[in-house]
C-alpha cells in the first residue's frame, strides 16, 4: 500500500492530524498490517540473531549466579541490593505504558490509542517478564524463594510475613502480569482469526487457529468480546497505579534515608509511565519505519506520547523537588546528609546529575512542537529518558545504601561482569521477545484500526477524541 501522502501535507495547520492517513480500505489495512507476518523482511533474522546472542548473556549470567552465588554480583555490605533490584524496578516501570495506553485510554475513549495499544501491551508483558526474573535470581537461595514467598498451606505451619513489602510485590507483580497477559490476548483474538484466515500454510493456519479460539466474528462474539475487553480494562486500570506504588513500598516502608519517603508511590507511578512511554517510542519509531506504518501510527500518535512524557516528567520532577524539601524540612541529619551531601558531592554524584538532566530537562523540550514531531529527537530523547530512569533507580537504591547511618559501614558498589551481562541479557531477551512478537503476531490491532477507520469514514470519531 502506498499512502497518498499529498493529502496529509495540504491541510489546515491548526486542525489536528487525523489518526489514520489516506482513508485506506479494510483490505488495504489488512494487507499492510499482516504483511510483516506473512511476508517477512530479511532484516528481522539479523536482529533476532543479535537478540538471541544477547539472551545467551542472560543465560550465562543467571547460570553463574545460580552456580556460585550472589557474590558474583557487585552487591556487598552495605549495598545489599544492586543491579538486580535496579533492573527489576526499571523493567516494571517500563511495563507500565502498555496497560496505561490500553486500559486507561480505552476507558477515557482516547481513540488515538488504537494504533499503538497492541504494541504497548506486548512491550508491557515482555518488560514484566524481565522484571519478574530479578526478584527470584537476586535472592540468595532462589530454589526456596520460588515457593516460600507464596502463601500456601504447608506442614511447617509458616506463612510469609505479610508485613513485608516484598510479599506485596509478589502479589502485585504476579497479578499485573496475569491481567496484562489476558488483556493482551483477548485483544488479539480477532486479529489471530484474521491471520488464520489469511494464512497460506497449513501449519500457520493450525497455530493461529488454536489461539483464535474459534473466533468467527459473529455479532454475538463481538458482543462478548467487547464486554470482556472492557471488564479487563477496568480491572487493569487500578493495577497501573497499584503495581508501582507497591514496588515503591519496598523502599518507602523501610527506614533508610532516601527510601523512607511518603511521596514515593505517586512519584514511582509517574516515573513508570514516563519510562514506559519512552520505551514505546524507542520501539515504535524504528518499527513504524521498517513496517511502513506511517499512515497508521502517525506523527500525532508520537506527539501525544511526547506530551504524556512531558506531564509525567513534571510529576517526577515534583517528586525530586519534594524529596529534597522534606529532607530539609524534616530535620533529620541523616536524610539531609544524603540529599545535600552524598547525592550532590558523593562518588556517585555524576549519576545523580545524569538523572536530573535526562528525566527533568530532556522532556522539557517537549513544550516545543518541533521537538515533539522530530523523529530523531523523539528517538534520542526516549533513550535518554530510559537511561535517566535507570539512573534514578541507581540513585535511590545504591546511593542511599552506600552511605547510611553509621559512617563505619560506608562502602562502594562496583558492578561486575555478571551484573552487566544480566542487564544486557534482559535487554536482549526483551528485544528477542519483541521481535518474535513483530514476526508472528499483528503488532497493530487490526480489528480496532478497521473499526476506527470506519468510524472516521462515517464521521463519528472525527479526529479521534482529545489527545
Amino acid at each position: 500500500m502506498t499512502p497518498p501522502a499529498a493529502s496529509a501535507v495540504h491541510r489546515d495547520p491548526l486542525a489536528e492530524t487525523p489518526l489514520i492517513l489516506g482513508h485506506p480500505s479494510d483490505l488495504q489495512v489488512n494487507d499492510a498490517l499482516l504483511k510483516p507476518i506473512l511476508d517477512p523482511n530479511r532484516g528481522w533474522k539479523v536482529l533476532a540473531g543479535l537478540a538471541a546472542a544477547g539472551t545467551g548473556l542472560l543465560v550465562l549470567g543467571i547460570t553463574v549466579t545460580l552456580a556460585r552465588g550472589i557474590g558474583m554480583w557487585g552487591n556487598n555490605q552495605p549495598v545489599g541490593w544492586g543491579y538486580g533490584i535496579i533492573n527489576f524496578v526499571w523493567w516494571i516501570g517500563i511495563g507500565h505504558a502498555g496497560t496505561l495506553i490500553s486500559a486507561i485510554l480505552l476507558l477515557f475513549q482516547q481513540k488515538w490509542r488504537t494504533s499503538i495499544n497492541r504494541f504497548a501491551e506486548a512491550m508491557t508483558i515482555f518488560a514484566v517478564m524481565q522484571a519478574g526474573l530479578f526478584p527470584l535470581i537476586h535472592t540468595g537461595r532462589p530454589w526456596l524463594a520460588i515457593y516460600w514467598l507464596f502463601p500456601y498451606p504447608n506442614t511447617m505451619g509458616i506463612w510469609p510475613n505479610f508485613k513485608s513489602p516484598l510479599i506485596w510485590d509478589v502479589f502485585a507483580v504476579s497479578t499485573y502480569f496475569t491481567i496484562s497477559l489476558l488483556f493482551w490476548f483477548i485483544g488479539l483474538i480477532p486479529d489471530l482469526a484474521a491471520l488464520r484466515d489469511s494464512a497460506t500454510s497449513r501449519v500457520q493456519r493450525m497455530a493461529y487457529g488454536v489461539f483464535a479460539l474459534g473466533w468467527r466474528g459473529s455479532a454475538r462474539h463481538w458482543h462478548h468480546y467487547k464486554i470482556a475487553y472492557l471488564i479487563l480494562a477496568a480491572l487493569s486500570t487500578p493495577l497501573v497505579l497499584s503495581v508501582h506504588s507497591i514496588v515503591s513500598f519496598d523502599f518507602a516502608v523501610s527506614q533508610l534515608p532516601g527510601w523512607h519517603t511518603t511521596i514515593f508511590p505517586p512519584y514511582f507511578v509517574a516515573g513508570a509511565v514516563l519510562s514506559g512511554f519512552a520505551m514505546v517510542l524507542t520501539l515504535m519509531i524504528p518499527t513504524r519505519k521498517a513496517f511502513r506504518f506511517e499512515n497508521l501510527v502517525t506523527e500525532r500518535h508520537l506527539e501525544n506520547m511526547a506530551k504524556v512524557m512531558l506531564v509525567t516528567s513534571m510529576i517526577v520532577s515534583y517528586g525530586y523537588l519534594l524529596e529534597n524539601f522534606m529532607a530539609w524540612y524534616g530535620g533529620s541529619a541523616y536524610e539531609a546528609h544524603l540529599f545535600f551531601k552524598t547525592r550532590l558531592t558523593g562518588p556517585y554524584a555524576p549519576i545523580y546529575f545524569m538523572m536530573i538532566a535526562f528525566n527533568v530537562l530532556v522532556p522539557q523540550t517537549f513544550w516545543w512542537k518541533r521537538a515533539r514531531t522530530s523523529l530523531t529527537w523523539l528517538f534520542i530523547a526516549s533513550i535518554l529518558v530510559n537511561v535517566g530512569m535507570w539512573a534514578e533507580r541507581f540513585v535511590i537504591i545504591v546511593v542511599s545504601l552506600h552511605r547510611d547511618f553509621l559512617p563505619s559501614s560506608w562502602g562502594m558498589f562496583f558492578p561486575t561482569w555478571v551484573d552487566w551481562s544480566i542487564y544486557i541479557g534482559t535487554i536482549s531477551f526483551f528485544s528477542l521477545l519483541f521481535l518474535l512478537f513483530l514476526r508472528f503476531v499483528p503488532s497493530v490491532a487490526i480489528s480496532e484500526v478497521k473499526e476506527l477507520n470506519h468510524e472516521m469514514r462515517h464521521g463519528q470519531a472525527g479526529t479521534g477524541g482529545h489527545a
Partner: protein
Amino acid sequence: MPSMKTLPILQDHGQPQRLSGKPGQRSLWQSIQELEGRSSGRAGEFAAGAAEVPPELSRRSFLQILGASAALAGLGACQPPREKIVPYVKDPKEDRPGKRFHYATALALDGYATGLVLAASDGRPVKVEGNPLHPTNQGASSAWDQAALLDLYDPQRAKGIWRRGQPLSWRGFLAEVQKLARAHDADGGAKLAFLVAPDASPLLAELRRRLSTRFPRARFLAWAPATADHAAEGARIAFGRPVDMHLRLDPARVLLSLDADFLAGHGESLRLTREFARHREPGAEMNRLYVAEAAMTVTGAAADHRLRMRPSEVAGFARAVAAHLGALPGAEALEDPARDRAARVVAADLARNRGRSVVTAGERQPAAVHALAHAMNAALGNVGTTVVYTKPVLGDATPTAAALAELAKAIQAGQVDTLVVTAWNPVYAAPAGLDLGALLAKVPNAIYHSLRDDETSRRCSWRVAASHPFESWGDARARDGSVSLVQPVIAPLYESVNAADLFAAFLEQGDKGAFQHLRDYWQARSGLQGQAFQARWEGWLTRGLVPGTAEPADGPALNAAAVAAAARSPAPKGEGLELALAPSYGVFDGRFATNAWLQELPDPITKVTWDNPAYLSEATARRLGLADGQVATLTLQGRSVQAPVAVMPGHADDCVTLALGYGRSDGSATSKGVGVDAYELRTAPDAWFAVGLGVAPGKGKHKFAVTQGHLSMEGRPLALDFDAQEWAHGHGGHELEAQRGPVPSAQPPVDYSKEDYKWGMSVDLSRCTGCNACVVACQEENNIPVVGAEQVAKGRNMAWLRIDRYFAGPAADPQTVGQPVMCQHCETAPCEYVCPVNATVHSPEGLNEMVYNRCVGTRYCSNNCPYKVRRFNFLDWRGEVPAVQTMLFNPDVTVRSRGVMEKCTYCVQRIERARIDARVAGKKIEFVQSACQQACPAEAIVFGNLNDKASKVARLQEDARRYDLLHDLGTRPRTTYLARIRNPNPDLA
C-alpha cells in the same frame, strides 16, 4: 578418668606406664574416640580387669603378652610413643555426646604463658577461654590465644619426621639421634648447638640443664624475632643485673608510656588492660595515661594525651621528663617548645602522684630509655606500689639479639655439626644481611622442630613436626612466674613431636614420653610421694596453676650514676626519614601469618586486613608526594623493599612504620605473598627503628582490604566521648539525655517485664581499648568464616562483631574512639518486619533471632538495619572443608550455607546451654556469658538479664553514661553503650 583403674601396663619400650586420675575427676586427657563415646563397643569386649596382668604370669597372660607384642611390635615404628590411652570400659554417666568438658592448660607466646581453659566437645577442643584463676589474664584471653585453635586444626601443619627428604619413624629418629648424641659425647658437645625459642618452662629448663651436663661444651642460644634485650640491658644499667619489671595499675593514677604498647601485645597485657580499664570510669579514682609514640597503637588510642614523636625522639623526651622529676641531673630544654611544655606538665602530674604513678618503656626503645624509666619510678617512689621487680622468669632461655650472629659465626667457623632449632623460623626473621639460610644448609645435621614447614625447614636437613600445645604435655610460666601445667586435650592430629621429647631424645630418654618427664620433674620438685603427690598433681591440672610459683618481689638498688651516664648517649642522627618496625596486631612477628583468622583481623587502628601498609602521617605523605595506596620504594642502608603506603591519622611526621611478619615467601596460601617483608630492612643493631630511610614514590597502586573506609563520625552522635571535667560539671549528661529514653514508635512496644529473662548487653567505651580479643572469640564461638582479602575489599567481611574506629579533630593529631558494634537486638527491629519469609523474628525474651533454615537471602533485612551488623553469605565461603577442619566447628552453632543472612545472636547457644543446666538443677539461669564478654580483658562488654535488677548489665543500663546508638530511630536496642570519658590534663589543653 572415671572408669579407669590404675592398670599395670606392659612395660615395653614405647609404652610407658600411665598413671591415671581419680574416679570422677577428668583432669587427664582422653582420646577422641572416648569422648565421642565411640569406644564403648570395643571397650566392652573385655570385662573390667580382664586386661590386667596378674602378679604371676599365667598361661593366658603369657599368650596375651605374646600376641600383644607381636601386634605392637610394628606399631612403635609409625607413631611417637604416647602415654597409653585406655578406652573406657563403660561410658561414665556424665559423658554424653555434645557434653562440654573444660580442661585447664596454658599457652605461651615468646615464653610468657596465658592460663587457658579449653572447652572440648566430643573429644575435640572447640573453644579457647581464659582461665579465671590465672593471675595474668584472670579469665580474659587475647586474639592470639583464641586463634590458636585454628592452628591446631590447620591441615597444612607439618607432619612427620624427615631427614634429607626421607621420612623417619619415631623409633628410627630416636636411634639416629642417639647415634648423633653419642658422636658428640667425645668432645663434650663442642659441635652441638641448640637455638631455642624463649621459654620459661621448668621442664624444658631442667632438660636443658641435663643436656648441658651431658654436653658441657654445647651451645645454647635463645632467640625470637620480636624480642630484643633492651629491657634486660636497661635493667642491667639501672640495677647491675637483669630484673623483670611488673606494673601494678590498680593503684596507679598517672601513667606515662614511653613507646610501650602495654595494653596489647604479649606478656601481661591482659592483666594490665583489666587493671587500666577498671579506673576509666569518671571519678577520683580515674587514671590518666600519657603515651609518647610514633604510630598509633592500641595503648596510644586509649591515651588521654598522645604525644606523637618519632621513636628516636622518645629518649630525649624521657630525659626531659626525668630531669624535671629530678631523676636525672641537668635539665635540658627540648627543641620543640610544645613538647618541652608537655614534658614539664607530665613530670608535674607524675610528681603530684608519687607512689601512684607509673613510667614504662617499650620493648622497642633502647636500653637507656628503660634505665630512665627505672630511675623515674624510683624517684617517684613507685617501686613497691605500682612497680614491682622480680627475678627474670625466662632464665637460660632469655632471647638475645646477638644469638643469631653468634650462631652464624659458629657455623661459618665450622663449629656446628648438629644444630637443633626450636626457635620460630630464623631464616625468615633473621636480621637483613645475615644469610642464615645458606649457613643452615652447611650444617650437616640441622634439626628444625616446627609446627609448620616454612622458610627455615627448606634449609634444614631434618624437619621434625612439632605437636601443637593443645596436643602436648608440658609446663609454662606466666610473666609473673606462675607455673601452669600444659595438658593435651586431643591426641596429636598428625605424627609430631613435643619439644620435651625432642630434648629428651638427646638424653636418650626420648621414649619416656613428655608426660612422664613432666610428672617425674614435678614429683621430684614437690618432694611428695604416691597418693599425696597424685592429689596435688590433680589439683594443679584442674586449676591450671601450680600455686606459690609466682616470683617474689625483688628489691634491686638503683645505680643513678649509671643511668645518668647511659642517658647521655646521643640520639641517632642521619639523613632522611625514620623507619619504625612493629609487631603486627594480627600476625605478630609472622608466626601467625598462616592463621586466616588473624590475617583477616582488622588492624585495631586502621582496619586494614591481610596487609602491612607502610604507615606515615598525612603531612609526610604530602611532602613526599605519596597518595594512599601508592607503592613506594623504601630504602635503608642499601636494602630496599616495595611497599604500598597508607596515611595513618596521628602518625608522627618524617617517620614510616612497617609491621613485621608479612611478605612470607613460604608457608601456606594464607601467608605467602601477603604484605611486605619488613625483615628485609631490619638489622641487628637497629632492630626496631633506624634513621636514614629513603622513600621514593613508585608507580603501582595497591588497594587495601579495609573493613572500615570512612573514619569520621560526620558529626553524628555515635561513639560519644566527654572530658572528665565537663562530665563532672554535668555537661554531657544533657547530651546523653537526648540519646536514651522512650521514643515514639509505630510498632507497639512489647512488655517484657513478665518474662524470666530479658537479655541485654552493655558496652563501655571508656573501658574498651579495641584490642580485638572479642572479635576472634566471636569468630571462634560462632563458626564465622573468613573470606579473604579480595572479598574484604569488596565489603563482604563476615565478622558479627566489629570494632568501629572513629577519629575526630585534626588529622595530624586526632582523638580517637573505638566502638564495638554487634547486633543491637532492637526491640522494634527494622530487620524483622521487612523479611518476606519470617526468617528473622523476635524471641519472647527479646532476642532478635535468625532462622537460617528459613532464610532465602533477599538481604532486605540488611538494607533496613541501621547498624549494618548483618552479614550475608555472598558465596560459599567454605567450599570443601578438610576433614580435620570440620573438628573446629562449634557443634552448637549452625554452619551457614551460601545465600543465607547471619548476625550476632547474643550467643544464644550459650543461653540455651545455661537454660538446660538451670532446668536440670531446677533453678533459674544464674550465669551466662557471651563469647565476646568472656574474652574481653577490659570487662567492657557485659551481658545478662535485664529483668534481674541486681545484675550488672541492669545496673549499667541505668548508668549516667548510658546511651543508645542511633537512639532517635526508635529501634529500642537491647545493646547499650556507656560513653567514653577522657581524662585530659587541663594544663596541657
